[in-house]
């Protein structure tokens, strides 16, 4: 833990909790490159925020999510396999940049089908979420009560 001070040290907490507006977070990330005290503080506090991800009541995932996820995953895996994409997908992406003219058709076909699947998934998800779209100011009023678990 650093003993040297920085007037922005409290920002480290807001940063790791994702409570900063995007533009401020970007500026703070830039600051981290120059300020050892803040960078150390971020690292120290990220241990806690990583732990918090698991520190919630543990439930069992409903089986229908698995069916939806694995349905899409298997379909995409088959398409990749059919296109001869047995190689590492990261490596494949790199090699496509270098040699895209050698095998243009499979790449285009896979991209088109993946895009279609992605659009279908996106449509499904946005369809579920659309009714909840409202102004952000509206949700503030609902959360003035005491926290459910604090103190």
């Amino acid at each position, binding site marked *: 833990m650093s003993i040297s001070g920085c007037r922005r040290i409290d*920002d480290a907490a807001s940063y790791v909790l994702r*409570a900063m507006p995007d533009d401020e977070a970007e500026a703070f990330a830039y600051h981290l490159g120059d300020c050892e005290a803040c960078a150390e503080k971020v690292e120290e506090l990220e241990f806690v925020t990583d732990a918090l991800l698991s520190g919630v009541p543990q439930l069992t995932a409903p089986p229908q999510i698995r069916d939806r996820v*694995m349905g899409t*995953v298997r379909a995409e895996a088959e398409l990749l396999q059919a296109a001869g994409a047995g190689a590492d*997908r990261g490596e494949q992406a790199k090699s496509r940049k270098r040699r895209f003219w050698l095998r243009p058709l499979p790449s285009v076909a896979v991209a088109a089908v993946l895009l279609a699947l992605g659009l279908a998934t996106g449509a499904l998800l946005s369809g579920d979420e659309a009714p*909840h779209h409202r102004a952000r100011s509206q*949700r503030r009023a609902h*959360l003035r009560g005491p*926290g459910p678990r604090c103190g």
Partner: protein
Amino acid sequence: MALMRKRSDTGPAELRDLADEDLMQLVRRGEAPAFEVVYERHSSAAFSLAYRMCGTRAAAEDVVQEAFLSLWRSGARYDRARGSVRTWMLGIVHNRAIDSLRRSVVHDRRRASDEGIEERFEARERTETEVARLDEANEIREALETLPPEQCRVIELAYFGGFTQTEIATMLETPVGTVKGRMRLGLEKMRVQLGGLREVMP
């Protein structure tokens, strides 16, 4: 070595013996069975986090689905040097849930809707690893809940509620500087309390 074998040589039982990081190498090659094992291991933790943040089953399901498909499609970006697969995956869920909260009001109903869901989803047999994870989750929650209420509250609102520091300051009628100070003090106390915590391996 399992990873050097061809696709057909890696059966379901063998996959279950692999560590997450090794499974991710197979996922990068587009192997759905390897991804399924990763899903089996972490989907409940993902759903638990999403539900904690979104407050409704439907929104949590959407977030988990989006997060795992994103993980499947971006597996190549996983870097084991930067942490475990579990933390990486939960980070994706957290980001998705924050995005969802910030473009909706779905969490407004959380206070009214989350009672009772634990019993509905929770009752079933647990493996040894799951029991260890449950203990770990309880320890972390306890560390948060035993903070002074004003520190717990700002951490809770930011990290699980998706509110920005300015929104929290307005909500609590407190200066932004005070909110940030409480966040830091609370996290520092938790850091000390969780000092001995080690992530449970699958």
